[in-house]
């Protein structure tokens, strides 16, 4: 392979197409061979046999968001570090490893400040510290 060729992306498309075909095909084919007996109770959401109460799309805990927030920052950080990590050895061979180490270290160190901040402020605790104050409710917060 002398040059960059987009043919290498073929399997990706083919595999995704397989996935689509599989799901759609099985569902469509299934219509023919599987039973279809809908009734009201069967189509209601499962709540341990009780009558379902209200929709499930209600407010959720903010901690999920904070987790996702810390994640996205680290995700971007990781994605940015990939190319630098990929050229590390190249630079290391010509004796510039220290420069790259410094760059990476600074980059990571700055973000570590952020995670240390979040840690100290308790954003990484699932059971937040101020909820421990009234003990009876704290256990309920674990979901």
């Amino acid at each position, binding site marked *: *392979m002398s040059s960059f060729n987009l*043919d*290498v*992306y*073929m*399997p*990706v498309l*083919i*595999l*995704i197409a*397989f*996935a*689509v075909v*599989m*799901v759609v095909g*099985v*569902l469509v084919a*299934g219509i023919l*061979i*599987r*039973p*279809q007996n809908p009734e009201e109770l*069967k*189509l*209601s*959401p*499962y*709540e341990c046999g009780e009558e*379902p109460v209200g*929709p*499930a*799309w209600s407010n959720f805990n903010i901690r999920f968001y904070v*987790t*996702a927030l*810390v*994640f*996205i920052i*680290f*995700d971007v950080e*990781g994605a940015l570090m*990939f190319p630098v*990590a*990929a*050229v*590390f*050895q*190249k630079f*290391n061979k010509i004796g510039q490893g*220290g420069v*790259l*180490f410094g760059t*990476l*270290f600074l980059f*990571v160190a700055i973000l570590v400040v952020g995670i240390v901040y979040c*840690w100290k402020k308790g954003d*990484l*605790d*699932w059971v937040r510290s101020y909820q421990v104050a009234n003990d009876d409710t704290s256990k309920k917060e*674990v*979901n």
Partner: protein
Amino acid sequence: MNSSIVSFLSEMTNFEFTSLHAFIIFGIACFLMVNVSALIGGLGTYAERKISADLQMRQGPNRVGPFGILQFLADGVKLLLKEIIIPTQADKVLFLISPLLCLAGVFATLAVLPISSGLILTDLNIGILYVLGVSSLVGVGIFLGGYSSNSKWSMLGGMRGAAQIISYEVPVTLCIISIVLMAGGLSMTTLVNEQGGLPHQWYILHNPFAFIGFFVFFIGILAESNRAPFDLPEAESELVSGYHTEYSGMAFSFFALAEYIEVFVLCGISATLYLGGYKVPFELGSGELINSTLGGPEFIGKGIGQLLQLGAFFTKTFLLYYVVIWIRWTLPRLRVDQLVSLCWKYLTPISIINLIGIAAWEWIFKGQSIFNLIASLLHSSGGGGH
């Protein structure tokens, strides 16, 4: 320098393939790959049941086929014939899209799985990053599955699943970066080829940081694939069945299939990153040694080399697969707060330190592994007397 199955075949047969040929070859190869992985996934369910039965001093499935090995086929046929129930209040479009997202995300990762030096479907330059990207679709799929069911259990499971998957992606990403840093490239073949066939040439034993990093990575992929002890999204004792509570029939089986294939893929990737991947000792994999010893046409040696590489890869992968199942039936499930604090307060700091440590190691010791260092030390101390 993108090697793929097409380039391998053209090298073997000295035939220049056009785009159309490549498409056909890729199609066939992908079809095989999907089927093999689905088979592995199916056998995974069987293996899981068998191994758990062993661990618990039971028999396990033993009726269908010899030793019950066809049990998964029977299950599959049964699921195919089951009704797909879509709850009235559900978001019907998303309800059907979410298994598709899971399955597509998992299948797409198969494209870069390096099962041998030639039989890799395509060796993208961005291989490992591509795996990270497409496998994040699984998280979206699980979340949407939970959301679209409009059931409280599903919703809780979906939220948990998404939060867990993205949380554990952080240490996993950092571990992968440290491996990329050692190998100096993102493509899967680069990652494998920088290692050697013998254990002391693997990255797990390259330096102490990488050794710790392997365990961090392994815990991370356990959590990413929602395996026990991290199976909170589908914790059957608390959340009924988690995000796929409302799914039935084939729609459910897609989730299950995706999960089992994902475990296989992730085990394969951890074998690739840390355990030398398809590398066979003494460079047997390239086939040159076999050719020079046995003589005969070139493709025979290469073919034997490829088979050896396949063997090496699958041995390592299935060993890890066994460990995954073993862990599942050994350890109890974590609480949510334990899960979160394990990720953010232990694994992430450790992996950050590992990353810095590996960078420092590579810088200070000029990329030598600890065995090389010890060897050169012994050599120099032994040679000091002269």
